[in-house]
């Protein structure tokens, strides 16, 4: 399995929240190698099953979210510029002259307008998203043939290999979590498991964990692990709030998570000499685990997070080793069967 290639394929597939189908198709193709029954549910979630089919085997949900942050077309101005609003948390400080892809009847390139230094008089301010103008080169009449309100807009940035094992690309949040799960499934291929596994690539995490809410109900697991990303230390960042890039997966510890699962993940990591880091939170986690834990009558849940720099920017940086180690840890934990003792 070529993990870099999987990350490249997943990163370049489109899946702004609520319109995950292009990324979903790719994910489905990759997941069916391990879960032949995988399919898309009415919310746009991808769900597949594997592992032990005995009735009393514990049922574990592994989740990573399928969607990415982006923008949505709200209007086309008379001069042929596109107005948009954000889908998920977008940093407006970095929108000027940002390369974008607009997905209408066809995909067209565009750029968010900027004011060049030659024309700036006095203090510049960060534009409100409602002031954003996107330039596609087309006139209003031409654009109306291609785009309509509700179409999604994504970042147009390439997949870059950095030094060491680091990668910079858009949508690593949370395509690298999906890749880690696929890697775990690869490691478990042809192995007998003491549990039943449902794999979920969930829609609409960035707009309030909607996919996790419906899929959590449908899957009805005994335990759930949300594999997502978390903040890796950038230059000058607060070490209290951030993990170390390349330091291994971060195991969530929080009042809203199952401490038993956290502890069993830690002992699985220690047992296999897999590097790991604690991610201590004091309440909800901002991940799909917040939905799983209160699904139906309650599900013991935990987070497993991949450290990532520059979250929600067009150039999110991860370490390939962290993705591998996340997959290794998931595989070791599932195989050992000491889930919540």
């Amino acid at each position, binding site marked *: 399995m070529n993990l870099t290639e999987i990350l490249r394929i997943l990163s370049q597939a489109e899946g702004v929240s609520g319109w995950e189908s292009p990324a979903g198709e790719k994910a489905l193709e990759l997941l069916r190698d391990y879960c032949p029954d995988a399919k898309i549910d009415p919310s746009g979630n991808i769900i597949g099953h594997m592992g032990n089919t005995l009735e009393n085997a514990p049922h574990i949900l592994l989740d990573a979210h399928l969607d990415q942050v982006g923008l949505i077309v709200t209007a086309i*101005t008379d*001069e042929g*510029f596109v107005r948009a609003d954000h889908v998920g*948390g*977008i*940093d407006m*400080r*970095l*929108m*000027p*002259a*940002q*390369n974008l892809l607009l997905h209408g009847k066809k995909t*067209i*390139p*565009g*750029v968010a*307008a*900027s*004011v*060049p*230094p*030659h*024309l*700036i008089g006095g203090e*510049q*301010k*960060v534009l409100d998203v409602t002031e954003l*103008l996107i*330039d*596609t*080169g*087309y*006139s209003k009449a*031409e*654009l109306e043939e291609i785009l309509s309100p509700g179409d999604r807009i994504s970042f*147009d*940035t*390439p997949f*870059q290999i*950095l*030094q*060491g094992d*680091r990668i*910079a690309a858009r949508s690593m949040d949370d395509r690298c979590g999906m890749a880690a799960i696929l890697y775990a499934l690869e490691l478990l291929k042809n192995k007998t498991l003491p549990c039943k596994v449902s794999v979920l690539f969930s829609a609409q995490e960035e707009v309030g964990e909607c996919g996790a809410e419906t899929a959590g109900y449908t899957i009805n697991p005994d335990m759930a692990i949300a594999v997502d990303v978390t*903040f890796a*230390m*950038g*230059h*000058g*960042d607060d070490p209290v*709030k951030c993990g170390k890039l390349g330091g291994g997966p971060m195991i969530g510890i929080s009042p809203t998570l199952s401490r038993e699962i956290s502890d069993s993940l830690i002992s699985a990591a220690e047992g296999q000499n897999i590097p790991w880091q604690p991610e201590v939170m004091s309440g909800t986690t*901002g991940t799909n685990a917040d939905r799983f834990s209160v699904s139906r009558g309650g599900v013991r849940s935990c987070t497993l997070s991949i450290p990532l*720099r*520059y*979250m929600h*920017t*067009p*150039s999110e*940086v991860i370490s390939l080793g962290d993705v591998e180690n996340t997959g290794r840890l998931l595989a070791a934990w599932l195989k050992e069967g000491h889930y919540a003792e």
Partner: protein
Amino acid sequence: MLNEHLKKLCLLCGASGHEKAVRDYILEQIKPYADCVKIDPLGSVIAEKKGAKPSPKKLMVSAHMDEVGLIVTYVNEDGTMQIAPVGGIEASVVIGRPVIVGDVGISGVIGAKPIHLLSGEQRKKLPKFAELYLDIGAENKAEAMKIAPPGTFAHFLPAFAELGGGKVRSKALDDRIGCAIMLTLMAQELPYDVTFAFLVQEEVGLRGAQVAAYTVNPDMAIVLEATTAADLTGAEGDAKVCALGEGPVVSFMDRSTIYDRELYHLAFAECERMGIPCQTKTRIAGGNDSGAIHKSRGGVRTLAISAPCRYLHSPSCVADLQDIENCMKLTYAMIEKAVQI
């Protein structure tokens, strides 16, 4: 041919003082057409081309090879780097962008603290250059020093795209547009002898132009440029400065030069004769190599012909190919008519 040169030139990297890749391409292209080629001590290319007749006045046509970029000023302990702008760049068009670093083209990104970790106040404040840093994925200072020590140049990632309505989106349109026009003109039969100057260091103070104008010692000069267009929704009348699709921009005055009045009127008359649109800049803003050339030695009668260009000095400038073609037609006409004044 014009469009092909433009695309190839835009994909090359040449921040001020680092124009070699652009110069090498130009030298290769002009070899069959130039009668004499010199490279001056600062790196500008001065190429003589014989026309049908010797010119009654010595005419220099110029464009600058350099683009705005970044330079590494310091390597941090954690392997990231501090950077400074080369030429006028707003930090908002740099933050979160992919870049390529050094002569071999190492991939890097400009780090942006994730929006989740910014206070409400921080989200509304544009970043300053001193707060930006470059991340190439290096583990530590020692590794980074081997790859990108202080003084290493970084460039916006080349990504040339065709937009709608015959427009293009790229870095460095300022002033590869002028270079592409000159390369195309040099491959044609010209009515008079012309000296073509491909200049360095425009973006850091018109320095290449200053010395090349001294060396060439022309009677008259035509500067080919890209100039700032602000023709966006919300900009009315003169606030647009100039507009895409409305033809070559001929300025009467900018922040560097008051242009030769007779040449200014002649340019409009020639456009009218040829039936191509022509416009002037409705704000006194920006400047170009004319600022140095018109004051060279005892003075040079100077005109600038510019293609209107949106989002100047960003990774994603937008220009109209028809405007560029019309700039070339006007330049050809001026080569014939201007020297007869």
